[in-house]
């Protein structure tokens, strides 16, 4: 018991709660990425916003308990825990609203957008540079939201080929975007 208390005081950076400027800086630095991460887990924009709020509420309350150098990972962990709780609580609703790809992006308020303008520009260029057969599969899967099996049937090619094209297409998109970031 005594050992535990000692370890706690050594490991935890005991400070005053984070001040508003620190919280704001955390939000500006990681808010966008966190929202995308949360959206990936809960697959519902409204819930993602709720979880993001809950995450930063925790940061206000207990963010100072984390070390500055691992604070990003701490935020993600908190976000994941919150997201999983929300996800379980709203399971039936989430099933009804289906998955991410079908959600209405056009209805997004600008501040709720999870895609940065520069990313759209890069993806547009990267997509245009893909071999047509890969671009076709990427578009059918993501834009038209068709399951891989349906794509295979439509294009009359084996499912494995569809998956390979998708995987290669995504790899190239990612590589192209990352190379432009550097």
């Amino acid at each position, binding site marked *: 018991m005594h050992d535990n208390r000692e370890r706690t005081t050594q490991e935890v950076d005991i400070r005053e*709660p984070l001040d*508003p400027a620190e*919280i*704001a800086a955390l*939000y*500006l630095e990681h*808010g*966008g990425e966190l929202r*995308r*991460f949360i*959206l*990936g*887990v809960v*697959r519902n924009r409204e819930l993602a*916003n*709720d979880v*993001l*709020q809950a995450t*930063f*509420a925790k940061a*206000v*309350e207990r963010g100072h308990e984390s070390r500055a150098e691992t604070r*990003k*990972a701490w935020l*993600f962990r908190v976000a*994941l825990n919150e997201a*999983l709780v929300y996800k379980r609580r709203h399971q039936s609703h989430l099933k009804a609203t289906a*998955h*991410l*790809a079908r959600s209405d*992006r*056009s209805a997004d*308020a*600008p*501040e709720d*957008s*999870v*895609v*940065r*303008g*520069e*990313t*759209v520009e890069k*993806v*547009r260029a990267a*997509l*245009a540079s893909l071999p047509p057969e890969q*671009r*076709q599969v*990427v*578009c059918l*899967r*993501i*834009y038209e939201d068709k399951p*891989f099996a349906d794509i295979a049937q439509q294009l009359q090619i084996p499912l494995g080929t569809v998956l390979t094209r998708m*995987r290669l297409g*995504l790899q190239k*998109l*990612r590589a192209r*975007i990352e190379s432009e970031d550097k």
Partner: protein
Amino acid sequence: MGHDPQSDIPWEAFRYVAGEMDSQEQQQFEDRLLSDQSLREALAHAVELTEAVALVACELQPLEVARPNRRRRNWAKVAIASALAASVAIVAASWFRHHQQQPEPVVAVHPSSSDPAYNLAAVAMTWTQLRQAERQQPADDLHELPSLHDWAEAELDSELDTELDPDAVAFETLNDVELTVPAWLIAAAEVGVLPTEESPN
């Protein structure tokens, strides 16, 4: 065999985001998320990539999707040409009847409209007259009805607009998106307490 599990992370993240995992795989993925920051970041990235592709993919439809437009355009041309030919035939027939009946009432035998020679002659004559009338018409009148060329031009223009100005509004909006600290967060940070369940906006 030289397989690098790290290289599968983005693919796994995509499959998770796209709902391509069964419940067991999904559970395993979420368990790994609890301790793997690179997997969390890969997930955030997969979401962004997926969303961005969904936003721009409509501009780059594959050929299979584009073909029906061409076919439709060809069918439109055929339909318009057929309608024009039919109109010319009708106009020619009435014109012929009118002119044959009025000045020459004595002529008892009229060529039958079912006579192919009669129809061909009528069409040829009417076509010539229409062409002459068209040449004499003022330029403004010529544009009252769209010609085949206009239809083609209109379609080309709209396609051009789509290419040159894709998602103009949406893109502008996205470019304008600067992450700003929401008021609820500032308030919460100043007070240092957990905010109530208000909308984050």
